[in-house]
Each structure stands twice: as structure tokens, then as C-alpha cells.
């Protein structure tokens, strides 16, 4: 990362500036642009259910990327927050009769609290050890999900909280209708996009990038690195929990698999596929990942060999992910 003992009078690579105004424009309008694209999604994808999944996993990957791409922390435990959001929403609606908006709020806050606990415990470890502590703590959450079956339904999954109608400002919307459902959940996604965009533009956004770039220097500049990381962890957990609540509303079912480490793994892969440390990357990654699975699994039961090969090719030839590579091309 640092240039050690090599006296260089001239830079190795001629400095280049992102001269493209296009990128600047895209960046400043990124939230509205994303929403515009999301509006079209259900009409270009093979199914509405898939479009809703793009929303959910896009938000999930975006929340994850706040921690991974922007703060530089590789967590293997984000399934816990996704799952917490989903379970809390489902339990609130099904067992306490909380209205859907209240349940969503509870889910998000609950996910945030869990992130505070897991983040607080793990933030002091580094590198792959951090990844493994988050994995281990998330597995404990999985275990709770499995064992507390009177609350969570255990391995059978949480059921019995179908939201058939959304009542809003006196209007009753049929939530079982796929189009209605998509656009209602899109509002959540839009809020998440707006929130993340603001966070990234904020001084805090600058601070986490500084920590990702150089933790030592950031600390020497006066940033409390642990605290900043923890806040980033919690914000990331909040967004992932929101994705969880969306998933609960969408399926009216919470499978125990949401807490499984494979879900955590999938989040990482989606983010990397799209391109970490870019705003659109995670969404693009989620989109590509889900589309690939959907399309190939319809085509052959051996779809995993295709998906696996595509991953390999991506790492070798497009290491910045889909969106990252696109950006690099445009800037050049």
C-alpha cells in the first residue's frame, strides 16, 4: 500500500483525472437514476417475483457494501441482520398483530441493535479473524433461530403473517398483486438508496473511506477508528435488516435459511460480482446473480457449473466487478 524505500522522482503511472463529466452527472443524480431504472425493472425481467428479489437483495448487498466496499471490513455474518429484520417483522405481525409499518420499523431497529452487539464484539479483530468472528456470532444467531421454534417456527420457518392488504392514507392496496407489491417495496428500496447515498456523501462517508484506505493514518488524523467502524457496522446492519423486512413482507414466510452462512456468502458474492466500493455495484451484482440463477436453473439442473465458471472468469478478467469495470472503461 505504501511505497517503501523507492525514491521516485517521477510517478510510475502518469496521473490521470476522471475527465468524464458523465460520471460526475451520474453520481450527483445517482438516487433518482436508480429509482428510474428500478421503475422499469418488473417490465424487463422474466418475472415480478424476480424483480422483487432484485430489490431485496440489491438493498441487502448495498447495505453490506457500506461495510465491505466503503469501510473495508469483510463480514461473513450479515445473514444475521437480514434474518433478524425478517424474523422480527414476521413475529411482530403474526404474533403481536403489529401493523405492517410498525413491524418494518421494529425489524430495522432490531437488526440495528443486533448489529451493535455483534459489531461491538467483533470490531477489534482484524482481517480474516474479523470475518470469522462475525461468521461465528452469526451462526449463534442461526442456532437461536433454530431452537427458539415457538417464536421462529424453527427449521419449518416462520409462517402465518401474510400481509394481504396495505392500508395507507385511507387507500387499501392489494399487496398480493405482484405489481402493487413491487412498487410498494420499491419505495423501501428507494429510501434505502437515498439514505446510503447521503451517508456516503456525508463527512462520515469520508471518514470510513479514509479508514478503508489507511487505518493507521486515519487514527493519526484523529478518527476513533473502532467507533467509526462500529457505526458503519450498525448502519450496514440497519440496511440489511430493512432488506430482511422486505423479504418477510414479500414471501409472507421466513425460512431458517435466511440466517444460514450460505446467505452471508451469497451477499459477499453478489457485492463482489457487481463491484464493491461503487454505489451501483451491489445492485448490479444482485441483479446479475439472481438473473443468472433464475435463467440458468430453468435451462439446466447443472446451472451451478455455469454460474461457477462465470465467477471464475469474472475474477480473472473483470476483477472490479460488472459496474466497476464499466466505470473504469468510461473513465478511460
Amino acid at each position, binding site marked *: 500500500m505504501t511505497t517503501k524505500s523507492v525514491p521516485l522522482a517521477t510517478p510510475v503511472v502518469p496521473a490521470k483525472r476522471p475527465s468524464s463529466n458523465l460520471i460526475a452527472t451520474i453520481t450527483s443524480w445517482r438516487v433518482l437514476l436508480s429509482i428510474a431504472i428500478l421503475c422499469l425493472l418488473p417490465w424487463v425481467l422474466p418475472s415480478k417475483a424476480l424483480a422483487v428479489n432484485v430489490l431485496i437483495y440489491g438493498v441487502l448487498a448495498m447495505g453490506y457494501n457500506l461495510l465491505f466496499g466503503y469501510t473495508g471490513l469483510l463480514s461473513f455474518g450479515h445473514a444475521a441482520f437480514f434474518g433478524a429484520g425478517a424474523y422480527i417483522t414476521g413475529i411482530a405481525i403474526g404474533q403481536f398483530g403489529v401493523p405492517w409499518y410498525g413491524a418494518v420499523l421494529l425489524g430495522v431497529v432490531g437488526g440495528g441493535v443486533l448489529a451493535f452487539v455483534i459489531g461491538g464484539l467483533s470490531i477489534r*479483530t482484524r482481517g480474516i479473524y474479523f470475518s470469522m468472528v462475525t461468521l461465528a456470532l452469526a*451462526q449463534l444467531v442461526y*442456532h437461536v433461530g433454530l431452537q427458539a421454534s415457538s417464536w421462529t417456527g424453527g427449521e419449518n420457518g416462520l409462517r402465518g403473517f401474510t400481509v394481504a392488504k396495505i392500508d395507507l392514507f385511507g387507500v387499501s392496496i392489494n399487496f398480493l398483486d405482484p405489481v402493487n407489491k413491487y412498487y410498494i417495496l420499491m419505495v423501501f428500496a428507494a429510501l434505502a438508496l437515498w439514505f446510503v447515498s447521503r451517508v456516503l456523501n456525508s463527512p462520515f462517508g469520508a471518514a470510513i473511506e479514509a479508514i478503508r484506505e489507511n487505518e493507521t493514518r486515519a487514527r493519526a488524523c484523529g478518527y476513533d477508528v473502532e467507533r467509526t467502524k462500529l457505526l458503519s457496522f450498525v448502519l450496514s446492519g440497519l440496511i440489511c435488516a430493512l432488506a430482511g423486512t422486505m423479504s418477510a413482507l414479500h414471501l409472507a414466510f421466513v425460512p431458517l435459511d435466511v440466517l444460514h452462512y450460505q446467505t452471508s456468502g451469497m451477499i459477499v458474492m453478489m457485492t*463482489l460480482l457487481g463491484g464493491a466500493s461503487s454505489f451501483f455495484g451491489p445492485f448490479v451484482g444482485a441483479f446479475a446473480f439472481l438473473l443468472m440463477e433464475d435463467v440458468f436453473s430453468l435451462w439446466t439442473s447443472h446451472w*451451478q*457449473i455455469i454460474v*461457477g*465458471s462465470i465467477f471464475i472468469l469474472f*475474477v480473472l478478467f473483470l476483477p472490479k466487478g460488472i459496474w466497476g469495470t464499466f466505470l473504469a472503461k468510461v473513465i478511460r
Partner: protein
Amino acid sequence: MDAELILIQLFSGVALGAILVITALGLSIIFGMLGVVNFAHGALFMVGAYGGLWVASLTGSFWWGLLVAPIMIGLFGMIIEWLLVRPLYGRSVDDPLLLTFGLSYVLVEAVRIVFGNDGIPFPTPSQLTGVANLGIGYFPIYRLFVIVVVAVVLLLLWLALEKTKFGLIVRAGARDPTIMRVLGVNISKVWLLVFGVGVGLAALGGVLAGPMRTVNPEMGSLVLIEAFVVTVIGGLGSLLGSVVAGLLVGIAISMTALFAPELGTIVMFALMALILLVRPRGLFGKTA
């Protein structure tokens, strides 16, 4: 609860620990020396089991399978290193991780295509069937044999790393690759070999596990996690750490089985979380 039960339970823990050690070694070595997080470790373990079975069915002898399959798959590992992993050195650690993740998908599916989704019977070699009376209880002879193999492999590895020039180069290379280049050592050949050995060990674990478990395309997925846990508890890059951690996890699982066997999987994660919270670099990890 009588003392005999606790003793046999302790012994089961050590035996299970030996299995965990052999599954973790390959991951630990590649991780420690090359800094590559090999997500295909579990898949290669599974390929090892199938490879062993295949060789055994061709030759009619388990022993050929045990000997030949790990070497064969070790060579395959070298091809992987040369073809896929080598271009990634110097890039971020995420890249090999993502690549080997993709590779594990490919390997598992390839095995499904070739051998089908069903498991395949992997009979215990006839010389090693049956149970032995240990005085404190009965234990399968085959599992005792596995403990011996693990001990021999560890001894050979230790000798190779500590008593040979190659070992010296590997250990020095793990610390500072640039030094090796300055000294004129062809580090890429060393890494090729290390990767091959790591993959070969994963395959050996698979062959050994074959007669104990069902052989099927998904048998590697939990193994990957177990291997990670053991490696991390021991401390990255520490062979001794992996051995101690493997035994520790094995004993933790068997002791848990005395009062709440259903916690057998989760106890491993709880142990890891606990150890890392107290020692953030594992038991034998180097401090920064």
C-alpha cells in the same frame, strides 16, 4: 455418569479431532504460506473421496486409492494454481476467495454430472473392519487407523518443513516473498508445490473420510467451515495451532455430547468466537 463413559468420550474427541486436523491442514498450509483463502477446500476434499473411490474400484484396493488419489488431485491442484490462482497474486485477498468459491461450484457440479447426485458406497477396507475393545469401550478399527495416518502425515510435514531446505524456503517465503526473489529462489515454483501439497492433503482427508461417512457431492460443504474454524482457532499459518485447535474442537464436541449432543455443531462456533474475543489472532497466531 461414570468415569469409563467420560474416558471413552474423551477418546472419541481426540479421534474426531484427528479427523478435523486432517481436514484443516491443507487449508491452513495454503492460507499460511500463500495468503490464499481457498474456498474450494471442501470441494477438493469431496473430489478426494470420489478420486479415492475411483482408484480403489479400478485397482480393487483401498490402499492404492489412499496413495494415488491424493497425489493425483495434488497435481490437479497444481494445475489450478498455475491456471487460475497465479494470475491473482498481488491482487486483493478477495480475488482468490471469489475465484475458489466459483471453482467449488464447478467441482461439485462436475462430480454430480460424472457420478450422479446419489451418494456412492465406500466400503471400509476389509483389513480394517470391525471394532476394537479399548478397555473403556469399543471403537472402530478404521478410526484408530485414521489417527495413525494423521500422526504419520503430521510427522512427515513437520520433517519436511523443519528439516529440509525446501521447508526453510517455504517458511521464509511465507514471511517475506521479496527476500526470496532477491536471493534468487524461484518462489513461484515453491508456491506451486505448496498449493499442490495443500490440495493433496484436502484430498487425503476426503479419501480417509470416505469409509466413515457417506460419499456424496455435498460432503465438502460443512468440511470447509470446520476446516476454517480449526485453522482460525489455531492461528493462521501455524501448523501446531491447527493441530491443537483440531483436538480442542474435537474434544469440545465430544464433551458437549455428554450433556447436549444437539449443540455439537454450534459449540465449534461458540468456541471460535470465545477464543478470538480473548485472543484476536487465534491460539498460535503471530502478533502484528
